[in-house]
């Protein structure tokens, strides 16, 4: 069971709430120190050279505070860190182009904040500007449409699958199983963000706790590919109940997904999470322990991650073209490796893979996942 992904509507903002991996904390680092109290916002410098600007924000007040870097209009947010509890320190890292800005502490998280003017001088370092925000907006909208399309196909194929399973057409149901699940696996981080639906739809047997009712895809999977012993097949009534619930929950999922919009952080993190899924569930053969159709899921997870990446790619090309090149190459390499295991319309079963082949897939996943984890910060920072 996965934790719900926080859905925060921050589309278009250039921000990062996390600190960079800086090891030095001495004052010579050039970082701007910010001390936020209940009634003051002390900024150690009023200016900084362009490029990466790091604000070390310490909350010395008694209330939760936020810190913003605002554009010269005092409205557009360049970057922010929020939820800084009393006594806590947190860094804000922004890529700032030369120009005039405002810093603002917001103790109590209300009002306009305590503001000061801040100047970024030209250091000669190139800072990406242009219409990154527009590129991101386009990409996230494309991704929204993609998710809606996938969930639509999921609903249709789930209905088909449920009908076949209820009717006892086991061969046809087995043939459709992996294909239908592809649409779930492509949008898994979105689907899993609904903490009530995910366990009903996609729980594996090992994830159950004692006494918990088992429903969803994998319960049906086991019934269609039953173990040789110690298994009682579902009755016709049980089959109908499971299949109906699968359809109801999937339809519910579809309805909820229609409302969603996404920001660049969600696309980037979603891509990373899809590769996590591959690394922890598919490469290990744990996801489909009865049908062994793990490579279908593998491909679907990679599809979903690639789409998210490609939606962000125009923005990434502007900000970090090297990373874009690396990711393109490694997606291609992973895909080539996967293609070797194609078998007709689908793939080889996990149990047909040799240890060396599994290791090669795992290595390719690691090779892609590591730079993919940088995608969010590279685009959003």
């Amino acid at each position, binding site marked *: 069971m996965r*934790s719900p992904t926080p859905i925060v509507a921050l589309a278009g903002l250039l921000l990062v709430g996390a600190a960079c991996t800086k090891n030095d904390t001495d004052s010579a680092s050039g970082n701007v120190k910010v001390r936020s109290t209940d009634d003051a916002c002390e900024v150690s410098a009023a200016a900084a050279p362009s490029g990466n600007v790091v604000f070390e924000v310490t909350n010395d007040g008694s209330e939760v505070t936020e810190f913003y870097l605002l554009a010269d209009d005092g409205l557009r947010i360049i970057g922010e860190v929020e939820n800084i509890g009393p006594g806590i*320190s947190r860094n804000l890292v922004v890529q700032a182009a030369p120009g005039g800005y405002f810093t603002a502490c917001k103790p109590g998280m209300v009002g306009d904040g305590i503001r000061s003017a801040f100047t970024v001088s030209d250091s000669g370092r190139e800072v990406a500007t242009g219409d990154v925000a527009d590129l991101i907006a386009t990409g996230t909208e494309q991704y929204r449409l993609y998710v809606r399309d996938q969930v639509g196909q999921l609903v249709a194929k789930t209905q088909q699958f449920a009908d076949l399973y209820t009717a006892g057409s086991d061969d046809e149901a087995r043939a459709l199983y992996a294909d239908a699940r592809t649409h779930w696996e492509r949008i898994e981080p979105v689907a899993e963000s609904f903490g009530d639906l995910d366990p009903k739809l996609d729980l594996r047997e090992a994830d159950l706790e004692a006494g918990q009712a088992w429903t969803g895809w994998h319960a049906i999977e086991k019934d269609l590919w039953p173990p040789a012993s110690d298994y009682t097949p579902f009755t016709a009534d049980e089959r109908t109940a499971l299949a109906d619930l699968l359809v109801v929950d999937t339809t519910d999922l579809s309805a909820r997904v229609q409302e969603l919009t996404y920001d660049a952080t969600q696309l980037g993190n979603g891509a990373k999470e899809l590769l996590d899924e591959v690394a922890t569930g598919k490469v290990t053969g744990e996801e489909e322990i009865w049908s062994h159709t793990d490579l279908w899921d593998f491909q679907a997870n990679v599809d979903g991650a690639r789409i998210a990446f490609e939606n962000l790619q125009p923005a990434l090309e502007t900000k970090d073209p090297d990373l874009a090149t690396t990711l393109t190459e490694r997606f291609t390499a992973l895909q080539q490796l996967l293609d070797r295991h194609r078998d007709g319309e689908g793939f080889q079963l996990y149990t047909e893979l040799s240890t060396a082949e599994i290791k090669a897939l795992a*290595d390719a996943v690691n090779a892609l996942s*590591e730079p993919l*984890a940088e995608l969010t910060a590279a685009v959003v920072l």
Partner: protein
Amino acid sequence: MSLSRRRFLHLAGVGTAGAAAATVSGSLAGCGRNGEAAATADVVDYYGSHQAGIVTPAQDRLHFAAFDVITESRDDLIQLLQEWTNAAAKMTSGRDVGEFGAMDGPYIAPPEDTGEAYGLRPARLTITFGFGPGLFEDQDGNDRFGLAARRPAVLATLPHFAGDNLDPARSGGDLCVQACSDDPQVAVHAIRNLARIGFGTTAVRWSQLGFGRTSSTSDAQATPRNLFGFKDGTSNVKAEHDDLLDRFVWVGDDDDPAAGWLTGGSYLVARRVSMRIETWDRTSLQEQEAIIGRDKKEGAPLSGGKEFTTPDFQLPGAGNAPLIAGDAHLRVAHPAQNNGTHILRRGYNFTDGSNGLGNLDAGLFFIAYTRDPLQHFVPLQTNLARNDALNEYIQHTGSAVFAVPPGVTAGDFIGSPLFAGVTVAVVAPKIGAAPTPPWTRLMRWRLRLLAGAPSPRCCAQTPAGGWAWACRSRSRPACRWRGRSWCGASSTWQPTVRQRSSSRRSPCSTSRWPSPLN
């Protein structure tokens, strides 16, 4: 290999006299480390009302082992616990195991102590023993050692928790030994020697090395970090918290009428928690902190303050959502969310190399001491397995639970109250009508003095006060020294008698004694 081994045997055979002489002189020459008590600064007292290694300030290194008991003999089990107790008392005080230790035994015999800790400080070594459910009843409910009536009601294999992926080869066990020291070699030496003593009575079921403690058990200790890079065990129960220890760690005298022997003891829950290191490392700092509920650098709760500030689970942040998320590990694990339950954690980071997929096989070997695993640990773990955001990055791959008897006083053995006051019929040796030497005790010593003797012998005390080489049973060799069974086929049975002498190291004579087997 076979050549050198043959050569060794050959030399051992022809050099008998010389070897015996060397044995005696070597023994007399001095005890070395074996006889000296180590300086007290890094010695943790083995004896006490509670076993050491629970509230002892957590040492840096761990070697934990779980054993299956493979004998059916209650006497053998007791004998083993006596030998383990003696060995533990010696090793924790910085001495070698056995009469002669690592270096000063007979030249023709394998050293009693394996020797790799020779010359090392004990480095606060503690050795803590526990009894698993299988010691009381086997899987079929058989009362193996006449202990079933004294089985604590709450000592049972833990239920399956959501997400568990337990490896049977890393779970369970009839006995456990937790060896902790600041020196890894000392901890490994302890397990190695106890395992060696146990061979024939016990078999190692699984063992786990741990480096880097993941909790503090004393206010004097700084909070260490786990492999996720976060401080772990900040709100642990610590040695200074007597009230919490009495409420949540030590078994009280009226906790379980059947298990009065456990008063002053505790229960040990071990969980091998594998961490998905690589995917965690790809997670943003923001998400890592949100999952844990603490700031990574200082360990302060996200609601503010310093490491030891009490978390404010209600304090809202942006969008009125609490600063410490609903599924943050800190929140889900906190006593405030678990009916005030505290547990004493004593876990260690581990890395068992890599898995076959090029990722670290690493995690946290979780050890908790609790007064009642069913009332305290099970609800807590049920809650965690269900609600903890961290589950995305961890998987429980091993599990075991043990009753940890109270401490030992000098001269007694670990768990002796469990065995006290119960009369169990001793199975008579099956050696026909021959006179059976009434054994008073087995001497922990063996000599291969008879040149060309077909097999080693046991040495036992006879009613006449002498020592005899003998076997208890033809069918089931029962003479043991250092966990090995000696004495086999009756055709090779050649008893010898020697007079008791002032020195236990005097060699046996070789005069013949009528074999009771013939």
